[in-house]
């Protein structure tokens, strides 16, 4: 029997890094304050002491150099796991990710690979303000060659991170800050979870809510409340945001006939736009109502908590959207 332990998502991620550092000497970490401090959120805590400064590297505030270094090292066979402290900072290394890491395998026609896993803390809800709160998947949706992963619970976080480090593609690994302290039973040993594979985390018959990261919890909470009203909600956790699992999503919506797509980032041009458009394209004749999106408003994220709450979507927004698809 596999031994499990109740741990937070931070601890689950730490366990994944520990396992991979221990197992593969090609794996190394680099980022700002990830060394003896253990990272801003503690994800790398203890690893500096265990594996040393060569493999758990503190860097200057040079995000482009962090990602460039990771890509270059990957080109010569290493397995770098760079950390960008906050997802909001990805703008400073956007070019390295988009024009270098993501395109290299293609433009040199397979002669080089860029297997890097960029870990970063994303998402809002804690008063982080305009530069420490954003959900950035929309910035990267239009980048062929890039894989985006976003776990919604500690179990998935560990398994997906291990899979990501073993995968040969460049991966942007989004860790939602509001989920960092969330706890669950997690196996201590190594295990993997496939990329590009969504999970049906709650079965239902009336409406499918396709969610990611923190919105999965919001969707599950909405589903519990809606059940009291006699509404049966199915919740799909995308887990890999790009390229996302069309098969699982379309199969679910084909059954329920109604879909709500919930994503924390602004609605315009976001992940939700792509998911809902695809559902409409593929399942038009089976839909009983228009596909609705629940997303952030088209505004930056303000510092003040009551204002932030207005911008970011939550359980109640999902409940309302589900009700609208039923009322249609």
């Amino acid at each position, binding site marked *: 029997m596999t031994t499990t332990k109740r741990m937070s998502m931070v601890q689950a991620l730490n366990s994944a890094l520990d396992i991979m550092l221990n197992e593969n000497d090609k794996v190394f970490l680099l980022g700002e304050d990830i060394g003896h401090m253990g990272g801003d959120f503690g994800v790398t805590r203890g690893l500096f002491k265990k594996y040393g400064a060569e493999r758990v590297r503190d860097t200057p505030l040079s995000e482009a150099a962090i990602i460039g270094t990771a*890509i270059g090292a990957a080109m010569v066979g290493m397995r770098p796991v760079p950390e960008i402290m906050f997802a909001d900072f990805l703008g400073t290394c956007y070019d390295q990710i988009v024009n270098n890491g993501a395109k290299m395998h293609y433009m040199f026609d397979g002669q080089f690979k860029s297997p890097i896993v960029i870990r970063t803390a994303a998402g809002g809800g804690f008063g982080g303000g305009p530069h420490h709160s954003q959900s950035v998947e929309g910035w990267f949706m239009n980048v062929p060659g890039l894989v985006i992963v976003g776990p919604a619970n500690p179990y998935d976080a560990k398994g997906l991170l291990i899979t990501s480090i073993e995968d040969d593609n460049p991966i942007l690994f989004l860790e939602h800050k509001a989920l960092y302290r969330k706890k669950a039973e997690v196996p201590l040993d190594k295990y993997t979870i496939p990329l590009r594979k969504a999970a049906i985390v709650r079965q239902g018959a009336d409406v499918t809510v396709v969610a990611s990261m923190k919105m999965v919890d919001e969707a599950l909470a909405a589903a519990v409340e809606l059940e009291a009203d006699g509404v049966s909600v199915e919740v799909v956790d995308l887990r890999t945001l790009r390229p996302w699992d069309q098969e699982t999503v379309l199969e679910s919506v084909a059954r329920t006939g109604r879909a709500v797509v919930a994503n924390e980032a602004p609605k315009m041009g976001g992940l939700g736009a792509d998911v809902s458009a695809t559902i409409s394209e593929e399942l038009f004749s089976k839909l009983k109502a228009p596909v609705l999106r629940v997303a952030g408003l088209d505004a930056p994220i303000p510092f003040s908590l009551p204002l932030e709450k207005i911008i970011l979507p939550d359980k109640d927004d999902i409940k309302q959207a589900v009700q609208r698809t039923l009322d249609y």
Partner: protein
Amino acid sequence: MTIDSDLLLDLYRDMWVIRSFEFGLEREFKRGNVPGMLHTGLGQEAVQAAIARNLRHTDAFFPDHRCHGLLVLAGTPGEKIMAELFGKATGICSGKGGSLHSADPKVGNFGDNAIEGSMMATALGVGLGFQLQSRDDLAAVIVGDGTSGRGEWHESLNLAATWKLPVLYCCINNGYAISTAVGASHATENLYEFALAYKMPAVQVDGNDIVAAYQTTREAVESIRNGNGPYFVEYKTWRWQGIFSGEFRPPEEIRYWKEEHEPIKMARETILDQGIADEASLDKIKAEVDAEVENWIRFALESPPPDPAKATANVYVGWEVETQ
């Protein structure tokens, strides 16, 4: 400074490979056989030949956008580079990279990044990889003067010096970033001064003097291989090409660089003065190279376009993209 006679003749040949390649390429570009944009290495033959001769196949180098000839000198068959620039199936990247993205890991060519200067950051990782793997290979990054305005340029120098990485910075200062003079857009015209501030050995050399350029590069490479960390070389040179095809530089400047301080002419004079070879044998080298380049061009012209399946091949490792 002197170098071995045979080596000087080899370098002379190398320089002519670059010039002849670019002459042929320019001709075919004007005929409409080469798509896209063209940035030639004409006028920069000495620095490119000097760098190529000092690297080995287990090193990594990041060429810039004017390094077509250097890619051949590094060891990739000339016809594979030429065909790549023509966008053909037989190109080294199956025609998907072109002039700005021709890589060949077999000879250490890690490819240009047409966001010029971005490979300053990538080179750090190659250097770090070599360091972690205890190899005595180095990462050479070839960049133009214009890239010194980029943040990554400075991030790279700082981190390479901090981590003592085996990185050779080859800064080819040809005086202009497209139309803007170095001195008009930077705090100094002498870019090695920036590198000195990052606490690494940094020198400036006449990039049109093949002997000086070769020797300086050699010293830098030896220092890096001996474990002393990064080294910065600024090669002062000049490109023949104006703004794409137009010209904006003063006539006297053009005359100086194209007639007086012209790298192949200077090398030829040195060889003749020292009695290493006579006019006839130098002309023979040129003729042989020219014939070879014409073969590469013929190969490129006659090669088929890439298989349509290549359009979506190798986007991801391990799975295909949808094509509908």
